[in-house]
């Protein structure tokens, strides 16, 4: 597996990259997030196809993959793509 890193510029809070080994692979994302400013949060399930694009946040890094062509998403989710934390990503292929 080889990664290529690309800088998005000094202002971006993340570093973009591409993982060819993940491109085109189907996956499920056990997603969710807190509701900002409240003590509420929620879970959301997604399934789709990874593009291979990722973003690394922080020095750890905290890697997020882009999933498109969603075949599973919440009923009220208006988008066709979602960024998913690698720790909650499960490859199907």
């Amino acid at each position, binding site marked *: 597996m080889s990664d290529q890193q690309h800088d998005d510029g000094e202002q971006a*809070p*993340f570093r973009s990259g591409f993982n060819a080994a993940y491109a085109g692979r189907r996956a499920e*994302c*056990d*997603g*969710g*997030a*807190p*509701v*900002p*400013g*409240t*003590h*509420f*949060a*929620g*879970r*959301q399930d*997604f399934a789709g196809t990874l593009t291979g694009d990722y973003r690394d*946040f*922080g020095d*750890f*890094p*905290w*890697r*997020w993959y882009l999933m498109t062509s969603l075949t599973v998403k*919440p009923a*009220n*989710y*208006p*988008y066709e*793509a*979602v*960024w*998913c*934390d*690698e*720790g*909650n990503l*499960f490859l199907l292929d």
Partner: protein
Amino acid sequence: MSDPLHTPLCEKLGIEYPIVAFTHCKDVAVAVINAGGFAVLGEAMHTPDHIAGDIKWIRDRVGGKPFGIDLVLPSAAPEEKTVDELMAMIPAEQRAFERSIMKKYDVPAPKEAPDLYTWGGLDQKRALNQLEVVFDERVPVFASGLGSPAFILDRAHQLGMQVWGLVGKPRQARKQVEAGVDVIIAQGYDAAGHTGNIGTFSIVPQVVDIARGTKTSVIAAGGVTTGRHLAAALALGADGVWTGSLWLASRESDLNQPLKERLIEAETEDAVFSDCISGYTMRTTRSPWHDEWMSPEAPPVLKPPLQMMLSSDYIQASLDYQRKDLMTEAAGQGIHYVTSMKPAKKILSDLVEEALDVFDRFADSDD
């Protein structure tokens, strides 16, 4: 018989009882810690400065005993918008329905704009800023209430911190156990807030099986409100319990009096699983807001955070004007057993005593 309540979790944390109180109130946290349990303070909604202040406040009152801080790490994120852009996205139909509810139940405008309006859009950077405080303060335990904390393990362990992860599915537990997370909180459907779809009695033993033979401890969450639940969790193989709803109406809790009364009055069926508060399905106590949005005439619920922006005036006003009839709070199905406003120390001792009674009953039956 050796003490059935002295579990490996007690050894891991240096505590007397394997009972973890998850709370948003630091007074509750301190009371439980000083009574021999453990407490994790929920800080997802707070700024880094606020979190740092709370950590110092707790440290000043627990005499070196360990405690935890919980953040809700996101695990999925769409594109970001500003608050103004999000407000503009609320459709007229849903806005009109919200106005009709406010009018029908005579809900005044809140005294101040809800915090949601000023917090801004969700992003990973905010979570990282919150995490930096936790690292700077070397909090003994960091707990992630949603997303996997695996990415911070190396840094946290280098600082002498433990890392805990709350899961709603066995596969989430497997991934975190393999990464080396110190404690997995196996949360069942009975729980308050953002639960998964698997019942407590189903997820806890599965996660115990996954963690067997590793250094990861498992604690049970979701509906734990009595000593019988504690004993049952230990019988399932967990090393302790994670409790939340149990503390909401405690004497130390900073929830207002009418809301505590509302929670004491609530039954299991009142802790409903709905997306009408935030756009995420989560378990909260039933209110007129729920009843209206669950009616056939209601328009579609909006995606988060738009639905939360729609409900926040109602929620804030119910608290500002102490309208018990309107109030709602995240609470689990165990709310049936929250029946009075006891001091946290008494809640803990009652839990311990009842659990020991269960174990004594089984020991006596062998005689």
